[in-house]
């Protein structure tokens, strides 16, 4: 069982009014943006259930956009983000859904730019979040650990190759989550680590054959 952290309970310092609906939204936006990691031309936010029903009044829409634009949870500009200069060059819109198969506070980000990417996450309470899906692959990370995301051809030995490089850096793997679309097809790996990987190690991983995508997503500051 994953233990909560004491500091999470008495944090974050944030702009109100809701830890799950405002701060959680900002953090989801930040983490999703870091996963996409490309210039954004257009973004669609799909809000589900409580996020859809009560999000407007909580500033959930403002928080999601502010996060995607890189603002932190305690940035006082969140309150007026729709009129802010930094939001002028991005094409964004919001959609609202009910789906009881989804978490009460769930959101999909559809990023469009050079590539298109769909990222799904939940705000799981007290400002804590989890990214659950990237495109069609299930993942699981929370922004509390530096995280390595890989998409690759489903072949033997891939986990071993990646973990060998991580081990050589004397870094411990906190969690490992794999998924695939089908045998021999496309697969994904989501590795949360204690500590940090340097550029050299990331480059070594990028040089592994049969990789479609590598992202090193840093943990969130707060």
């Amino acid at each position, binding site marked *: *069982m994953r*233990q*909560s*952290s*004491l*500091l*999470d*309970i*008495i*944090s*974050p*310092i*944030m*702009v*109100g*009014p*809701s*830890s*799950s*609906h*405002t*701060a959680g939204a900002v953090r989801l936006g930040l983490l999703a943006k870091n996963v996409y990691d490309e210039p954004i031309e257009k973004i669609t936010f799909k809000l589900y*259930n*409580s996020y859809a*029903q*009560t*999000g*407007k*009044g*909580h*500033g959930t829409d403002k928080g999601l956009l502010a996060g995607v634009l890189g603002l932190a949870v*305690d940035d*006082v500009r*969140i*309150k007026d983000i729709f009129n802010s200069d930094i939001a002028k060059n991005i094409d964004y819109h919001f959609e609202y859904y009910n789906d009881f198969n989804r978490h*009460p*506070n769930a959101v999909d980000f559809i990023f469009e730019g050079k590539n298109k990417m769909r990222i799904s996450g939940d*705000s*799981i*309470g*007290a*400002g804590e979040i989890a990214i659950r899906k990237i495109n069609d692959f299930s993942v699981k990370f929370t922004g509390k650990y530096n995280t390595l995301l890989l998409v690759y051809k489903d072949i033997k030995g891939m986990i071993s190759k990646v973990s060998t490089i991580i081990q050589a850096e004397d870094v411990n793997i906190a969690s490992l989550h794999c998924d695939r679309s089908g045998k021999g097809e496309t697969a994904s790996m989501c590795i949360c680590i*204690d500590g940090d990987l340097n550029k050299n190690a990331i480059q070594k991983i990028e040089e592994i054959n049969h990789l479609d995508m590598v992202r090193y997503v840093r943990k969130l500051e707060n």
Partner: protein
Amino acid sequence: MKINTFDELKAACKAENKKIYEIAQENEAQKSDISVEDLRAIVKNNITAMKDAIKTGLHSSEKSYSGMSGGDCIKLQDKFANKSSLLGVIFEKITTYALATSEENARMGKIVACPTAGSCGIVPSVLVAVSEEINANEEEQINALITAGEIGRIISNKVQLAGAVAGCQAECGVASAMAAGALAQLRGESIDNILSAVALAMKNLLGLTCDPVCGLVEVPCIKRNPFLGIHAVTAYELASAGIKSLIPLDEVIDTLEQTGQLMSPSLKESSQAGLAKTKTGLELEKAFYAR
């Protein structure tokens, strides 16, 4: 050391002859890979942010975006200036500090979620008001907030602290239990009495629903904060007399979890029932979304 329950916490305190905050800060520092000093510095920074939010909120009458809140804290201060509280200065401070923080939250001001933003006025109001009145030093204040954090952490191992998951009992309810524990620590109570204060506070708030009008963290959330700050003091006073909860704390937390699961989704932050769907609640909602 892994501590998942209050029984385990108590056993660890007894085995090592340490206070709750000592055990908690050692475990947390180790888990977060930082020193105890660094951890305490973060907690100190959060206390400063709590005091800033109180200070800002006490001087503001700005309405929230919805227009449903803002101005009550000034009203209450004016009242106390003319006619002091029956219950004295600490009562005045807790209620005004809690309102100040919660109103500040609703107008998208900067606050400390503790454990959540909707409940952000409860722990700070008790911690700051009492510390001022008994001249608690910085270290004692940090000890008290770490104690509160450990209480919230153990509860959150069982129950997600979100109205959408378990109702307001898991937000303002847990905040009041944390505040009761923090206050007992501030007053130098025994570990048993600290945990009794938590159990008594939590037990009395089981079943509290989350039915916010217009889905906003305003009605009934804001006024609930001063109420539950005072509620924490009641729990502390009973516990410090040696009064115990007949149902042990861990079982109270199990009940919190079960009650959250049994609570209708319509009463868990979805604004589909309760105060949100009263005649007046619906009128307010209509007016808000017509804007």
